[in-house]
């Protein structure tokens, strides 16, 4: 016999937990499945203070936001299944999950896919040599497992992730030999770059990694300068001795489940890849199937949480049909906060992407 829930949420990261938080105010029988041992997704690895609005956990460290969200969930209403993968969705109401015991059928009224994103790889010589890591893996090792993951690191990518993870590595006692960025400009916030610069870390814009070399493991990297058309400039090669090259070269939304479910998937470059088309309340073209967070376009965790709030609100409203003015009022608040978060030059891309997505939807 299969278990039955009002709302099934896939992914216990910021979007999934926020969806459960809002939904559980109005309904019960909510299930969250997540493949990790502990809930929190990327939040639990974030030891730095978050940006954003005071109303939305700004200044609080990511790991503490995770604890605040978890503490706020009522155990009577929300059930969490860790180490569980969602492996298939069958219209209209069936999710197949897999845990240590095997496969299970889960029935749900509404589904929220908060499946996040995966790190991008980049091609260079010997990129499969041991010692080439994703920034997320480095964070997991040091911030979740308490392991110092390297001694001397070169970071590839000067977006916020590359800058923040470099800083966290330095806090763990790792030496950062430099941050290399192919674009002529630092992509992340200036304040993150400034923290590294005052600790003596060089940030080399218009540079990239030619390759990593070593006997069975990374022992050095060769970097070179790039021209205006991103072409390598000969004679600019420099060798840097390292034991680890860390990659922070962007994320790609994880939409496999949504795709398999039959959601309308579009490639929107501003949202970092293929994303599921959704309406202003995060519902996809399949009624009752929602998306939230990076799976609907890569943005910051604060945006993911608001999208989760929105999806959770609409899913709960469709089930319970509670007071309409309460619903509209809460919707308006989330909309307002999302809009204000997406102002400014750093959010232009995501903003444009979301706009394109809405046009495609129509």
């Amino acid at each position: 016999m299969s278990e039955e829930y009002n709302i099934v949420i896939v992914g216990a990261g910021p979007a999934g937990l926020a969806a459960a938080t809002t939904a559980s105010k109005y309904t019960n029988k909510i299930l969250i499945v997540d493949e990790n041992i502990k809930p929190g997704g990327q939040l639990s690895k974030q030891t730095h203070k978050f940006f954003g609005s005071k109303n939305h956990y700004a200044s609080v460290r990511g790991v503490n936001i995770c604890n605040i969200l978890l503490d706020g969930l009522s155990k009577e209403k929300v059930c969490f299944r860790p180490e569980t993968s969602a492996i298939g969705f069958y219209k209209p109401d069936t999710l197949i999950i897999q845990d240590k015991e095997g496969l299970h059928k889960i029935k749900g009224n509404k589904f929220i896919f908060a499946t996040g994103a995966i790190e991008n790889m980049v091609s260079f010589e010997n990129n499969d040599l041991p010692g080439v890591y994703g920034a997320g893996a480095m964070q997991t090792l040091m911030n979740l497992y308490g392991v110092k993951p390297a001694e001397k690191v070169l970071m590839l990518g000067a977006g916020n992730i590359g800058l923040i993870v470099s800083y966290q590595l330095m806090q763990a006692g790792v030496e950062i030999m430099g941050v290399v960025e192919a674009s002529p400009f630092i992509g992340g916030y200036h304040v993150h770059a400034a923290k590294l610069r005052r600790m003596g870390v060089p940030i080399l814009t218009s540079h990239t990694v030619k390759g990593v070399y070593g006997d069975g493991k990374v022992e050095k990297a060769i970097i070179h300068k790039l021209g205006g058309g991103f072409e390598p400039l000969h004679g600019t090669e420099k060798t840097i001795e390292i034991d680890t090259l860390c990659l922070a070269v962007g994320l790609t939304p994880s939409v496999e489940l949504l795709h398999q479910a039959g959601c309308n998937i579009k490639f929107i470059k501003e949202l970092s890849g293929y994303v599921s088309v959704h309406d202003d309340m995060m519902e996809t073209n399949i009624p009752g199937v929602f998306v939230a967070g990076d799976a609907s376009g890569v943005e910051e965790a604060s945006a993911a949480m608001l999208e989760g709030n929105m999806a959770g609100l609409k899913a709960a409203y469709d089930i319970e049909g509670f007071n309409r003015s309460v619903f509209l009022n809460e919707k308006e608040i989330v909309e307002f906060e999302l809009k204000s978060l997406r102002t400014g030059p750093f959010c232009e891309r995501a903003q444009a992407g979301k706009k394109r997505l809405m046009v495609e939807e129509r």
Partner: protein
Amino acid sequence: MIAYKTTGIVDMELVSLPQDWEKQTRFFPVIECIEKIPCNPCSFSCPKGAISVIGDITNIPQIDFERCNGCSICVGKCPGLAIFLVNPNFSENKGAVILPYEFRPLPEKGSIVRLYDREGKEIGEGMIEAIRTSKAFENTPLVTVSMEKDLVMCARHIRFD
């Protein structure tokens, strides 16, 4: 394009300072936050209402130096670790800077530390006058370090053996 986007070093002409800042005899905030990013906790953190982010959350914080009493809460709250308190005349012949320091071990009070500028260049020595940790600072330790008066607008990081 503005230089800091390639260097990571703040353009000081974009940072507001009190008039005749060299003559100040108390701590005032130097907010090295010059970019339109969605962030506003500094404005809520200030018990005196001296910092405001007006309108959009991406607007740059404005500071009213008259209202600031040097409590340092903003230094601890700023997620970008971009606020420093500076007192150019901490004593007769020394200035001082209060900076966020999120590393272990913490320096000891009274100890001598090396000072670094925004590019990570060593620029001199300073003495630790105080170390404060508090939940009000989001557990970011705040270090007060005294130094030659002409270094207070340059020293932004410390190291010690």
